[in-house]
């Protein structure tokens, strides 16, 4: 009897100590950063920028342990819907909320306008698997014909004309595209429509409408299919080419010479994009037909849709502003290179920072 009572006391004491220890506030390793905010926010949206946002969240939460940010990569459409339904503090979207749809988002912001802020850029690489062919060069016209299935064989003269000195096999081109709706498809088809309107007669959009080829679910499936199928071609975000065995990125000749897909060449194109939004709304119109030398033309930009003013206090506008300031900072944008994304640069970055600093904190 005595031993069980002693045991019970000891158990209760241990449990109590553990509970009380858990209740105590953690002091944290670093001293509180002046730019940190506390609390928690929920966000949802584009999966294209999912990895970038996750990296930022991890870095921010390490620095500011009083903050919790939860981003769900449910897709742009679902993300914007949740934002308009007041379930999230901001949304991530591949194509930006256009003027007409912005009014619904404005209602959500109690009058203060909803704005698009571009934060993450990306390059869409044309990935191919041709054993023995390195540095494949393609132009917009030939690319459009390949993806519209009008050019069906690798040894087509149109391809050989651009690639002197390389031998192409007499094989059918196994073309892969996205079977699910995606911002990558949206930007790629916009590029093809803008640069090769005669060869690409299909309306640009998030869904693939051209005939032929095979659909794969998600960029990861597209790259896996290209990597695993000889004589194949597909389009994926540049970051997916890390760690592939057979898949390589093609060079795109926009009229000023072949350009490799990389962070630097893509950011040239993004930085030169025209702003179609007014005020702090930075909706961009990318010039896919750019003939600038060293500019990779197939790019995409993802936006954060936030309330400039009017975000209710329970959605924690201070933390939204603090997090986005971190994302737009030099530290934040430099982190993008490591994960295969493209940072925003130049005067566009200045405008982004102005927009973020104008966000109301209450």
């Amino acid at each position, binding site marked *: 009897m005595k031993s069980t009572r002693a045991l019970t006391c000891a158990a209760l004491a241990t449990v109590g100590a553990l509970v009380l220890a858990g209740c105590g506030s953690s002091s944290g390793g670093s001293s509180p950063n002046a730019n940190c905010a506390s609390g928690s926010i929920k966000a949802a949206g584009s999966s294209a920028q999912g990895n970038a946002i996750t990296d930022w969240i991890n870095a921010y939460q390490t620095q500011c342990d009083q903050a919790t940010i939860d981003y769900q990569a449910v897709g742009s459409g679902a993300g914007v819907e949740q934002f308009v339904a007041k379930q999230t503090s901001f949304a991530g979207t591949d194509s930006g909320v256009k003027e007409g749809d912005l009014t619904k988002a404005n209602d959500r912001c109690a009058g203060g306008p909803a704005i698009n802020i571009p934060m993450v850029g990306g390059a869409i690489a044309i990935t191919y698997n041709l054993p023995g062919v390195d540095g494949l060069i393609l132009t917009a016209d030939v690319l459009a014909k390949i993806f519209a299935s009008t050019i069906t064989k690798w040894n087509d003269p149109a391809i050989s004309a651009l690639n002197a000195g390389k031998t192409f096999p007499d094989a059918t081109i196994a073309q892969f595209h996205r079977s699910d*709706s995606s911002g990558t498809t949206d930007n790629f088809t916009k590029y093809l429509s803008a640069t090769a309107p005669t060869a690409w007669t299909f309306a640009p959009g998030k869904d693939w409408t051209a005939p032929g080829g095979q659909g794969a679910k998600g960029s990861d499936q597209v790259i896996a299919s290209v990597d695993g199928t000889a004589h194949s071609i597909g389009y994926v975000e540049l970051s997916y080419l890390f760690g592939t065995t057979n898949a390589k990125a093609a060079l795109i000749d926009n009229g000023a010479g072949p350009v490799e897909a990389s962070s630097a060449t893509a950011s040239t194109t993004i930085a030169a994009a025209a702003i179609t939004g007014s005020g702090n709304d930075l909706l961009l119109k990318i010039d896919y037909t750019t003939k600038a030398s060293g500019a990779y033309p197939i790019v995409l930009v993802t936006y954060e849709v936030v309330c400039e003013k009017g975000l209710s206090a329970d959605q924690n506008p201070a933390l939204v502003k603090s997090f986005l300031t971190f994302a737009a900072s030099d530290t934040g944008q430099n982190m993008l290179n490591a994960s295969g994304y493209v940072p925003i640069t130049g005067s566009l970055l200045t405008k982004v920072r102005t927009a973020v600093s104008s966000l109301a904190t209450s």
Partner: protein
Amino acid sequence: MSTSTDETAQSAADPAGIAGAAIRAGDRTFLGLSRGAGILVLAVMAAIAAFLIWQAIPSLQANSANFLTEQAWLPDQTPSVFGIAVLAVGTLVTAVIAMLIAVPIGFGIALFIAYYARPKFGKALGFIVDLLAAVPSIIFGLWGLYNFMPAVTSFAQWLSEYLGWIPIFANDKQLWTKSLLMAGLVLAIMVLPTISAISREVFLQVPRTHIEASLALGATRWEMIKMAVFPFSRPGMISAAMLGLGRALGETIAVALILSAVFEVNLHITEPGGNSFAANIALKWGEAGEVGRSALIASGLVLFLITLAVNMIARWIIARRKEFSGAS
């Protein structure tokens, strides 16, 4: 005498004898709980149907093409153009392929376990087949995509080469991956454990007297099965097949990973292409706009109605055969 007439009248109106018997609190509670459970299920079904209809209306009104015959799926465009032709054909074709393969094999496994195998071995085999049902759908999809695909591709190539004169096996694109045939085969494997488990239970329910009687009359094992087992278990076999069909119609992730999702009705089952209702919803939901989401729910409503119709037909077939079996 009047008491006995009263009693007979009472028992005629109330054969289970519930009304007159002493009702304890326990009986009342159980009655309430079971009635409540039944009503809850009906309420959930009604809620789902109401939700589907309510959410589908905006897109159906906005659609500028015929919902039933249009092949393209572009609901978020202006003007909205979308239709379920490709989805319906894809869903039905993959389900039919799955059924054609899974039903005979499932019944075969069940018969083997019930009547041919030794009891212990039969139990072990049954256990393993049931384990197949525990494998998550996405694992089937990934396995199908990476491991099963080469084998099916060779088989499909053989089919299109030697049986290409039959229109459905013709292959003009010289590509054999990500086809309806592939999806149908993976669905067959997924649906097999359901069919085999249920029909096995049904076969084991056949009264031993029927079996002994036919064996005593000198029937061989197969004749015994034909004479005694099948007539008795027909309703059960049909419900097993219908449950399998229900799963094949609604399977989402495995089909979404495998199919090439092309919006063109293509009856060449060895060519890449095709899409199904559930896979389409999985692929398009995240990026869909308002009309897009409503259109996807409309397609979900059609799938709901198809499954309902299939189940009602099954119930009707079983009801017709009721008097021939012990299931009444």
